[in-house]
């Protein structure tokens, strides 16, 4: 049977945004969301990562959510070794 998960309000961000946060090493618990109801957007994550959003935020909320293609995010220490 499943372990008793500690019930608390989960962070308000979509899986895609949480993926971005992981790639940019941003702890979402420390980010204040600017979206509706405190939702954390991609822009919030990038800002927290010290990166300016690539585009200035536009009026339409869908534009705000727009992300560039996922960064390869290869850390040198873990670069895969080329197969022979």
């Amino acid at each position, binding site marked *: *049977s499943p*372990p008793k998960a500690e019930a608390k309000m989960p*962070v308000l961000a979509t899986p895609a945004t949480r993926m971005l*946060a992981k790639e940019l090493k941003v702890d979402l618990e420390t980010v204040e969301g600017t979206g509706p109801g405190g939702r954390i957007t991609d822009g919030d994550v990038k800002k927290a990562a010290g990166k300016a959003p690539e585009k200035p935020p536009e009026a339409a909320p869908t534009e705000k959510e727009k992300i560039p293609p996922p960064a390869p995010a*290869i850390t040198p220490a873990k670069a895969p070794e080329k197969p022979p």
Partner: protein
Amino acid sequence: MVVGDIEIGTDVLVIGGGPAGYTVAVECARSEMDVTLVNNGELGGLCLHRGCIPVKTIMHALDISEECKKGAPFGVDAGNVSVKLKNVYAWKDDVIEKLESQIKCLCDRYEVQMLEGFCSFTSSNTAMVQGSRGEQRIRFKRAVIATGTRYEEIPGLPYDDKSILNQDSLIRNKDLPDEVVILGGGYGGTTIGTLAVKLGISVRIIHSGDSLFPGIDDDILCPVTKWLCENGVKIYSGDWSVEKKDDVISITINKNGNDDVIKTKKVIVATGMIGNTEKLGLENTEVKINDKGFIEVDGDFLTSDPNIYAIGDANNKPYKNASKAFREGKSLARILKGGTGFPDYQVMPLTLSSEPKISCAGMSEKQAKDAGIDILTGISCFSSNGKAVSLGKTDGFVKVIAEKGSHRILGVHIVGPAAFDIADESYLAIETGARLEDIVLTVHPHPTLCETLQGACEAALKRSDGW
């Protein structure tokens, strides 16, 4: 497999060919990494051969015959429907074979090197495979342990395939018993109990604790215990202990200080699983396990040994199921490629093959209340769903739990025949932080079963102002 003295070199050694193991192997190989997959036994693991797939397949075949039998009101005259259990199990084996060959194909397509045999570590970068044709040494840069679990035994009562059984016995159809006592409730006990009833076996279930399935709200569980009772299943709760004398197994159940003793010739132990990490040679590495044999890992599945990872049932992360195994396989492949793994999930769905079926996502009503969250709940019954009525399947309901202030959906619990099919919307809803309004304002086609999910959200909303 070329057996011999020559050591094989590989970038990534994967031990175990279950969902976790074959997924990480294929995903790494897809990125042109050099991958060797060692598996001992059946490719596809517990899930394919003795778990998810066979249980669902056997149940479906038995359910079809039930549908036929109940077809008369629909105008279907099925004559004397009968089930040939031998053929049901043959179909199950067919399904397994088909799916196993798909996994084989995938591995071949991406050129995963496959070895058959039992693998154990000889150091932090070498391992040994004992196959039918001898021994093979392997040198690896990184290794992934995906060896899964095995059934825990009751101390002093080892499985003997005769009287002390585990869930395999029904799934493999070695000689179905006429009656059986199942030790343990929860996922294992409820699933195997349901299967046993459908196979015509007389069943008693013994569980400790208050509920047959702790963590599921009572109202959701109620139709299931009702079905079990109606089908002659006796459910006992209390602290139990087991003794075996000659052929007879006596189980003493203590509830509120009173002892109840029941006797049987066959028990199925469904108390849980332990990590499949014995004889893995972990002592030759830095890998650490906990008291149940599960491997300790960090957020990136790395063990205490910097070269060795562990995923799937074998690691000490919460939940043991195939979805977690697949996800960890995919996530680790990204890490091994030098990227980041997947973020944490918020919802681990539960799908219970009870009768009726149960699907749970997110917080139960009790969990939310215990956590002090102010909630709205809403319920909608399948009996008022047009499609369910037209299918003649009106048992059950959907319950939704949302935070009162924000209307954010925290939990969706479904009991009913359609529970597995329509639940996918609820996973996405909770993961993305959707609100009740998001589901209510999304058009759901008519007549479909998912309207009941929408209906439950609407019912919750109607308890707030303005709806």
